[in-house]
């Protein structure tokens, strides 16, 4: 197998940033979609696979885990251009904090393959950027397309529970529940117990 650095066209001592830049430029250049109408998509795919493997290999080497075989898991594997492997790559990038790279891959996914997982990941990337309205839409779509998926349902639930905290400093201090009589009793008894623990006493009779 060829040297991954040669494939990406970077020096061995290139910075992570430069490698990422080279990878992105190449990935954009050889994206199978660019070749769909010229009948060269299979060749582009092969090239793409090579680039992905090279990038993965460099990443692995730099992370300190030496690997003999350049494992799969690249963004654009051979076969059907966008399998769940793409999304594994998106997740990997997401977990490493490379959100714009993850979004790049997601935006390059053709319309026809934008299923539940695509919507979910797109929602996560948007959320990361603080785009709540857009994120909500994509995560809702993911839940709609795959209602049984626990991960998507949990994300939706998180958005909802975050939203439910709105107005709490006002409603709890001024109106709403406030401090009812029974709350007061409970608090006093608690305070008494605490005082007794420390050797004091707040309410003499108990």
């Amino acid at each position, binding site marked *: 197998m060829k040297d991954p650095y040669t494939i990406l066209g970077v020096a061995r001592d290139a910075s992570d940033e430069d490698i990422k830049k080279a990878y992105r430029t190449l990935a954009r250049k050889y994206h199978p979609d660019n070749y769909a109408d010229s009948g060269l998509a299979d060749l582009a795919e092969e090239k793409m696979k090579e680039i992905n493997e090279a990038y993965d290999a460099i990443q692995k080497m730099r992370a300190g885990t030496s690997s003999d075989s350049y494992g799969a898991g690249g963004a654009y594997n051979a076969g059907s251009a966008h399998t769940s492997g793409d999304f594994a790559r998106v997740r990997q990038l997401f977990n490493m904090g490379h959100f714009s790279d993850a979004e790049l891959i997601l935006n390059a996914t053709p319309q026809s393959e934008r299923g539940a997982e695509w919507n979910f990941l797109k929602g996560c990337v948007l959320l990361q950027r603080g785009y709540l309205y857009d994120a909500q839409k994509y995560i809702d*779509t993911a839940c709609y397309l795959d209602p049984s998926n626990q991960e998507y349902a949990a994300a939706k639930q998180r958005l909802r529970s*975050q939203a439910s905290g*709105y107005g709490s400093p006002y*409603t709890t201090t001024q*109106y709403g529940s406030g401090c009812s009589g029974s709350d007061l009793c409970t608090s006093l008894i608690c305070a008494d117990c605490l005082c007794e623990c420390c050797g004091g006493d707040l309410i003499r009779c108990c």
Partner: protein
Amino acid sequence: MFGYIRPLVPQMLVCENELYRAIYCGLCRAMGKHTGCASRFTLSYDFVFLCAFRSAVERVSFTVEKHRCPVHPFKARAMANDNPVFTYAAGAAAILNAAKLADDAADESGRKRAAARLLSPAAKSIRKRAAGLDMLAESVQTRLTELSALESDGCASLDEPARVFGDLLGNIFAHGLTGNEERLSRTVGAAVGRFIYVADAADDAAEDAKSGTYNPILRLYADLDPASLFETKTVMDHTGRAHTKPRLRTDIAESIYTAALGDLIRLQNALELIDFSRCQKETAGIVKNTAYLGLPSELRRVLALPD
């Protein structure tokens, strides 16, 4: 402006509501004084909130007197006396309205454009009287240009244009303040601006779908069948009258509402950092009631969601 920023009156203290009405009338009077009689027709609840907020942050207290006015000639009403906060709000309103009108005259089509063209000389004369706010006028203009560029591109995001409008309102809320007060006011204004943009988009969605006008919500949900987005629902207006209109269907409405509350958390976080202990008690009450109860309730009304 739009009038989506109002308090939830049934949950206000009586003294808060009295002061709120006095601020409303006081702002109208101040607009007549500073930017001309014609500008009084552009009075909106959004700028009344701006007055309450700015006076709470700047610790300006309102004094109230009874006066008659052309709209209520027979019975004198309690009105807050003119102060620097009113002067600023009247100027900011003039700038925003004039810029918006010029924008509509250039972008919109049909009846809206004709109306905008008809009104623009009046807006210009109002605008001329808003002295000393040239920096603000420039930044408002920049944001509106940015917004119309996004709209003519057919931007398929609700967050992006909402942020631009948020920046615009953040500038208006923060102008003339310094230090932490400036930063907090900018954050509050930005959250309020995003809210106004989203509420307005949701309010107009059905009409825009019919007329083919740009609407970010329609673009965001472009993957669904446009006809399936709407259901006929009963909407209450502010006087409590019911209207039957096409509105966004319930699951989409709920989704927008949840996202809006999530976004409003940023407003809550900023308000929690503002020291309201040394301002007039009622103004702080108005600000908190409007932010925490008024905004969610108004959005539910616009989206035709049950309370």
